[in-house]
């Protein structure tokens, strides 16, 4: 559906329109729920784009997350924070069903993306994942050239024209703050890049499919402060058009980039609210302890 766009800007206006339509359809059912978290800034996208209802995820008999009920709102950044092993990645990876690849997993409850129960039998996983992109915790470039890495998604969507691909690759690399470093040799193997460069390549690769929702699992954990700054700028830029869910261990980062923050602990959602509220005036003792570093 997004193949024929020629640039990020164009895609922006188009997506805005889509969201407008979406609002009309979904407003009625969602209004009551989103009232508590209604934000003036994102008033035009007041309905949730991802919605978990009593969602639980199990790896065999191990619980990954339990009874998560939360909504992610479009055109905003939602941060997920919490101690290691509390199920942040599990929840994030459930949103585009990439956890399906792990054997013996099981879910309970529902997870709606754009109003559709994505764990229902007839879910088009290809379309889901093209529209809900992901950046993984560990950089995972393909053992191909930089160009082929980024062109992978667009090629799957049927873009084969060289000039078009070239343009997508350039735009995506620029957006991920990697263009200047690699523009001279796009044919170089992606594996020859440094860890931080690989991570930015993966971000560029995810952007190249023009997703509507971007899931980022600690995208900056392998990056130096400069690259981190660039990625945060990128998130800032993208959030007017994309919906971003970002897992981070960096409290300042969550405070800087996100509108809303969810605090997970031991597989449960402890608190979910506007970021300033979470950081200045958390409603729960657990949240406060974690944020102030008295956790444990």
């Amino acid at each position, binding site marked *: 559906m997004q193949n024929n766009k020629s640039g990020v800007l164009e895609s922006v206006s188009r997506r805005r329109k889509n969201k407008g339509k979406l609002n009309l359809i979904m407003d009625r059912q969602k209004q009551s729920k989103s009232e508590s978290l209604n934000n003036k800034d994102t008033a035009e996208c007041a309905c949730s784009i991802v919605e978990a209802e009593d969602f639980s995820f199990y790896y065999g008999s191990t619980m990954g997350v339990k009874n998560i009920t939360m909504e992610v709102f479009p055109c905003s950044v939602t941060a997920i924070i919490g101690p290691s092993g509390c199920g942040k990645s599990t929840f994030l990876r459930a949103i585009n069903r990439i956890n399906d690849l792990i054997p013996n997993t099981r879910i309970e409850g529902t997870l709606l993306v754009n109003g559709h129960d994505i764990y229902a039998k007839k879910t088009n996983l290809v379309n889901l994942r093209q529209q809900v992109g992901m950046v993984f915790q560990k950089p995972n470039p*393909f053992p191909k050239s930089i160009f082929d890495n980024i062109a*992978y998604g667009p090629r799957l969507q049927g873009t084969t024209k060289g000039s078009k691909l070239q343009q997508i690759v350039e735009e995506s690399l620029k957006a991920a703050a990697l263009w200047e470093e690699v523009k001279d040799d796009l044919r170089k193997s992606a594996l020859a890049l440094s860890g931080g460069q690989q991570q930015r390549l993966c971000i560029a690769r995810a952007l190249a499919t023009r997703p509507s929702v971007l899931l980022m699992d600690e995208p900056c954990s392998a990056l130096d402060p400069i690259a981190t700054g660039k990625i945060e700028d990128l998130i800032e830029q993208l959030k007017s058009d994309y919906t971003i869910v970002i897992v981070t261990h960096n409290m300042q980062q969550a405070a800087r980039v996100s509108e809303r923050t969810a605090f997970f602990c031991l597989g449960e959602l402890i608190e979910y609210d506007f970021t300033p509220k979470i950081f200045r005036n958390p409603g729960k003792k657990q949240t406060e302890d974690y944020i102030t570093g008295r956790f444990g």
Partner: protein
Amino acid sequence: MNGTKLILTRGQATGLNRPLALTPGQDLKGYVASLLGRAVLFLITCTSVLAVLLIFFFVCREALPFLSKISLSEFLINTEWYPEADNARFGALALIAGSVYVTIAALVFSVPVGILSAVFLSDIVSFRIRAFVKPVIELLAAIPSVAYGFFAVLVLAPWMQNKFGFSTGTNALNASLILAVMALPTIVSVAEDSISALGPELREASYSLGATRFETIFRVVIPAAHSGIIAAIILGMMRAVGETMVVWMASGNAAQIPRPWWDISQSVRTITATIAGEMGETPKETPHYWALFALGVLLLILTFSLNVVSEFFLSRAKRALGKQ
């Protein structure tokens, strides 16, 4: 923490008191141990290398007199192999061709099946089925080749003759089908190992960009594992080239190049079968005897070079994985 120090941390800052130099003066025991260890390992390595070199040397020594009698070009280009005739001919081309025929035909059958099975096992079936099926496939390697030979002669040969009307049931096709089955466990096992060794990360990356399973397998998994897959093919090929008993029983043993050349329903004879079949009844120190050793050298060179190539690809596969 208050006051009492943990055992783990007691005296750590000043505890750097074990010698850091591995010299006889500072640490005699450690020095001798490391020296001894290296010497033993060196000796063991030497033994196996020596064994290989000795085999090479011995086979070459027995083959050398042959070269003074018959020119190398006649040996490699002539197709007439009549070692016992009055006017003996030692053209090995038909035998070389026989080996190449059955090997390539075996690969044509076993490579697609082997790679697809490997992908099927690693990417498609559930973990439980894989844990059951892979050992079964590897078990194929444990069946003695005589048993395969029996099957070829008693089951496959009559079936081919009746079903397709071939003039003989023991022919190149028969031998290569059996060889294909024998090469399968190697190919499946090595290819599956290298495909599984890729780990879930690349697959997750591919699926997260909206790829289907088919696209993921053919655009990411197989290209990423290609070094290991090539090594698997070469190892399977070595199995086919070196195999003796099965081709001796199943190929028909006619020292001829099929005419037309693509007709694999005709009998052929391989280098290995010739050596095994004729060595027993050939008197020592005769041109025939030396000729068989020359065939042996040829075979050694062939398998050695295949081995080197497969090593190259296997190490490349490892390096490619290490870089991730």
